[in-house]
């Protein structure tokens, strides 16, 4: 890829300037699904949490699954983008903003689920530590409060991480548009001009943020895992949960990023910016995470099985051979058996279709993994007399579907407003032209070249 700045400007600002009828159709269709979710939530507010399929003893179900899942997806963006920035990987340039936007949107979606899940959602603000006449504060010993703080820190951090490098691009849009859009982007760009001082401070800030956001991202999913690990519930009370959840989050995050990038590439005609090499690199990361994920599942299973405690084993066999076993084995197939061979073979991994094919089951499998952590342990908690079952209701399914529709909807709206590839960072990569950008020449081509030249 070697383009002049004018070409880059034109091609990357194209989605902002022209809109096809297909776009409106997609927004309308997704908007309808989101509205169905809102309707379902309204129904639940009216009828109480009893509108969901929850019961005693399964007090947590699909909502918490969705919450953990979306937090996991959020690790696609800021964490990966920050790691790539810190390690100064040149191929990151077209990927970063695409990834960071996933983080912000999936965090926003994730943050609604604890509220939807509450029995009395109109009192959700009691989680916020604000001074009140009651003189009573939230309880900071509760993992839910840790969640609240971690989520807010992560949301503020990743929003800044997304926003800061957007200022120069907003300025670019400002200079290339007229009327209300010029005024709007003028405000959004905060009057960015591009003095050396501004550039230097921005780069410095991004370096600091990248370093700061990595431990935050790790802590966020660790704390989400502690929601479970802090409770004396068989299958939950485990020290492995922190790293296990972080690994799973990055795993599902990369898978989501690959899917989103493939869609963005196709729909916004960015074939020359998001190249197969990017999918190849992310595919390698995905392969590594898949193996790490499998290692964690094995480690968790082995220690539980070897320890052989009655209450732990009840839950263990419930998932491995009991009523949840179809879901469990489907999860293993989706997360390891399908993607590992595809991603291990270089020829498949370097084809975008195949990496996407490996990513879709991972997203499904990771949702199942969260479901299998939440529900079976609650169904068969310690006292056998209190065993129960759980089936999600249409309300829970509707809200879940709506959350899956909200993600592309927010993304569609986002690509209309913000260039999905950080233009200035891309240009910066252009004029330095480091070696990593170029795709390595496949071995067979070298061999062919050698034979052709007669050596």
């Amino acid at each position: 890829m070697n383009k002049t700045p004018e070409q880059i400007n034109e091609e990357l600002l194209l989605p902002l300037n022209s809109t096809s009828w297909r776009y409106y159709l997609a927004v309308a269709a997704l908007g309808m699904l989101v509205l169905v979710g809102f309707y379902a939530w309204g129904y639940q507010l009216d009828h109480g949490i009893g509108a969901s399929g929850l019961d005693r003893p399964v007090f947590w179900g699909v909502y918490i699954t969705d919450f953990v899942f979306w937090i996991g997806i959020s690790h696609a963006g800021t964490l990966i983008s920050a790691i790539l920035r810190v390690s100064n990987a040149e191929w990151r340039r077209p990927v970063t903003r695409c990834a960071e936007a996933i983080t912000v949107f999936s965090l926003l979606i994730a943050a609604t689920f604890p509220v939807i899940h509450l029995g009395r959602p109109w009192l959700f603000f009691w989680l916020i530590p604000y001074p009140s006449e009651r003189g009573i504060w939230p309880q900071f010993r509760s993992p839910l409060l840790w969640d609240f703080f971690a989520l807010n820190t992560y949301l503020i951090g990743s929003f800044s991480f997304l926003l800061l490098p957007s200022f120069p691009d907003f300025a670019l849009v400002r200079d290339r548009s007229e009327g209300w859009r010029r005024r709007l982007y003028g405000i959004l760009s905060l009057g960015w001009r591009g003095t050396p001082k501004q550039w230097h401070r921005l780069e410095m800030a991004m370096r600091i943020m990248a370093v700061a956001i990595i431990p935050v991202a790790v802590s966020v999913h660790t704390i989400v895992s502690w929601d479970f690990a802090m409770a004396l519930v068989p299958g939950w009370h485990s020290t492995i949960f922190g790293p296990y959840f972080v690994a799973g989050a990055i795993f599902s995050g990369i898978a989501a990023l690959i899917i989103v990038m493939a869609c963005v590439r196709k729909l916004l005609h960015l074939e020359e910016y998001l190249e197969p090499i990017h999918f190849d690199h992310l595919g390698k990361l995905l392969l590594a995470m898949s193996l790490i994920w499998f290692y964690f599942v094995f480690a968790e299973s082995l220690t539980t099985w070897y320890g052989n405690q009655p209450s732990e084993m009840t839950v263990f066999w419930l998932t491995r051979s009991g009523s949840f076993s179809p879901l469990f084995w489907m999860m293993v197939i989706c997360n390891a058996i399908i993607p590992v061979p595809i991603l291990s073979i270089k020829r498949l991994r370097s084809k975008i279709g195949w990496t996407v094919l490996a990513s879709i089951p991972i997203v499904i499998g990771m949702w199942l993994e969260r479901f299998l952590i939440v529900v079976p342990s609650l169904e068969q908690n310690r006292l056998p007399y209190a065993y129960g079952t759980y089936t999600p209701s249409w309300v829970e399914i509707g809200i879940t579907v709506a959350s899956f529709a909200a993600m592309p909807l927010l993304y569609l709206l986002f690509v209309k407003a913000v260039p999905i590839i950080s233009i200035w960072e891309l240009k910066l990569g252009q004029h330095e032209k480091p070696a990593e950008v170029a795709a390595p020449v496949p071995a067979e081509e070298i061999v062919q070249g050698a034979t052709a030249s007669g050596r």
Partner: protein
Amino acid sequence: MKHGVSAFLVAIAVGGVASILLPFLVSGYVDGNRQSASPSYVTSGKCSASQMSFLAGAKEYFGIYPASVRQPIAFPHKIHVKNGMPCETCHAGVDEGQQAAIPGAAVCMTCHQVIATNKPEIKKLASYYRKGEEVPWRRVYWFYPSAHVDFWHGPHIRAGVECQSCHGDMRKETVAVRKAGLNMGFCVNCHRSRHVSTDCTTCHY
């Protein structure tokens, strides 16, 4: 076409709010048997489970109490207090148990058979009494059921808390009006300053 995006945003926002409200509008709060998630379900006292209106629910949510209540008889507290009647004379049992009594018409008539019989308000009282009815006094002080408060007058009186610290100076009032907000901060501050228990289960159960 450029305005399409903002139009969609507005439509989504409006539609989202509307579809949350839709079940409420469809179901209608008029139907008394519906189960509802509005913050409350009881209109007065702890023991009725009737459905309340959306507005009443909102008032309860924000802790808004009506300051004054229209009473059937404009009872002048100030005259009675000025004439040297202590509160317990009529509000019997306040120092003993949980609630302060509201006197029956017969109690009033022990005096008002002879005192001020020509006043219009006393005539109203007398007519209730003749019909064998009680005066339908309306409650001024109460806690919303969502406060889950169980208040006992007795221990407070025995601890020497003046009636007026919560109910205002009745030497100046005709019918009772709600003087103190009686929110949790009001109670807790007094409990703190008197070094009595601020344990939650002192009041909430």
